[in-house]
C-alpha cells in the first residue's frame, strides 16, 4: 500500500515536470507595429487554421493581451504545445493626436490612447507569467530604442529565454545586420510574418528556445 502511494506520487511528479516542459507559455513582446500579432496569426494559421487577433497599420491595434491555447507545433519528428500570449506593443509615450493622422475621430483617438496605456501596463504584468519570449522588432526601424533594451533587460533579469525576431524582411529598408549588431548576445531570425518567409528557421529556433525553458 505504502509502496503504491510512493510510486503514484513519483509518477505524478514526473508527469507534472514532463507536461510543464511540453506546454510552454510563449510571449510575443516588442514595440507597437513591429508585427507581433501578424507573427502570432501566422503561427496560429499554420498550426490551428485560426487567427489570434486583428492587425492594422494604426499603432496600438492590440490593446489587450490575446491568447491561443494548445497550439501544437511540429518540427522534424518532435512536437511541442504552446500557449501563445500576444501582448500590446510597449511604448513610453501615448499621444492621442498621433492617431488623428490615421483619420480617426478625436473621441476614437482618445479612447484608443486610453486603452493603449492600459494595454502597456497589462503587457508588463504578463512578464511574470511567460516561460519564453519572442521579441519582435521591425527590421526597417532603428533597433537601439530604449523600449527594446528595457524589454530584453527585464527578460534577462527574470531569466526568461529570449529569441529576437527581425520582422518585415520583405521591405526594402529592412536591415537585419543592424538588429544583430544591437543585440549580439542573441540569435536573430529574419522573417516576414506577412508573407510567411523563413518560418521554417523560426520554428527551428522556437524548438531551440524551448529547451532553455526551466
Amino acid at each position: 500500500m505504502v509502496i503504491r502511494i510512493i510510486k503514484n506520487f513519483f509518477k505524478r511528479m514526473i508527469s507534472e515536470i514532463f507536461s510543464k516542459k511540453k506546454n510552454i507559455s510563449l510571449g510575443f513582446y516588442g514595440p507597437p507595429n513591429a508585427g507581433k500579432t501578424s507573427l502570432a496569426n501566422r503561427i496560429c494559421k499554420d498550426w490551428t487554421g485560426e487567427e489570434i487577433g486583428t492587425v492594422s497599420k494604426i499603432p496600438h491595434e492590440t490593446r489587450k493581451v490575446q491568447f491561443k491555447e494548445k497550439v501544437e507545433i511540429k518540427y522534424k519528428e518532435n512536437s511541442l504545445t504552446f500557449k501563445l500570449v500576444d501582448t500590446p506593443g510597449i511604448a513610453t509615450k501615448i499621444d492621442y493626436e498621433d492617431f488623428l493622422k490615421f483619420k480617426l475621430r478625436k473621441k476614437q483617438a482618445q479612447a484608443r490612447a486610453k486603452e493603449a496605456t492600459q494595454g502597456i501596463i497589462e503587457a508588463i504584468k504578463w512578464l511574470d507569467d511567460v516561460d519564453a519570449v519572442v521579441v519582435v522588432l521591425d527590421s526597417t526601424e532603428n533597433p537601439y530604442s530604449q523600449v527594446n533594451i528595457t524589454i530584453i533587460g527585464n527578460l534577462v533579469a527574470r531569466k526568461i529565454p529570449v529569441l529576437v525576431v527581425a520582422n518585415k524582411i520583405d521591405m526594402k529598408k529592412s536591415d537585419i545586420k543592424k538588429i544583430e549588431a544591437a543585440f549580439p548576445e542573441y540569435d536573430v531570425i529574419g522573417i516576414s510574418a506577412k508573407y510567411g518567409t523563413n518560418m521554417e528557421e523560426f520554428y527551428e529556433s522556437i524548438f531551440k528556445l524551448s529547451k532553455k525553458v526551466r
Partner: protein
Amino acid sequence: MKDKKSGLTLQFIPFSQLSHLNSTERIKKLLKVIMANKIIVIQGRLKAEEETRLIEDTMVMVGSVKGFKGIELAVISPNPEDRTLGDKVKYFVANALVGQTDALTIIGPASAIKEMKKDPTKLEVMMSRKVFGYRQTFYTL
C-alpha cells in the same frame, strides 16, 4: 508683470542621490522632476525592473494627468568592446558593488522631448517645437 519667458531645465542627478533609495523612492523622485517639466540627466542607469516600473507608472499618469503624454527615455553607455581585460574586471567589480555608474540616463516628458535617436556612438535628443517657439533644436551627447 509676470515674466512669460519659459525655458527648459536640465536637472542632473548624481548617482549618490539615488544609490541610497529603494526602487519605489527612486521612481517617485524621478516622476516628481518629470512632472515639473524638467529633463533629468542621471549619472548611471536604473535597473531593468525600475525602467519597466517607470513605464508602468507613467502609463497610469497618462490616463490621469491632463496633458501628460508620457516620457522619452534613453541610456548611453561606453561600448563594452572598447574596454581592456583589466577594465572589464574593474567594471564587473564596480558594477556588482555600486551599480552601473559609467552610463548616462536621460529622461524627459514627451511634451518637451519630441524624440530621442540613439545609435552605438551618439544620442540625439530632439526637442519639441512647442518648447523652443517652433524651432527645432538638436542636441548631441
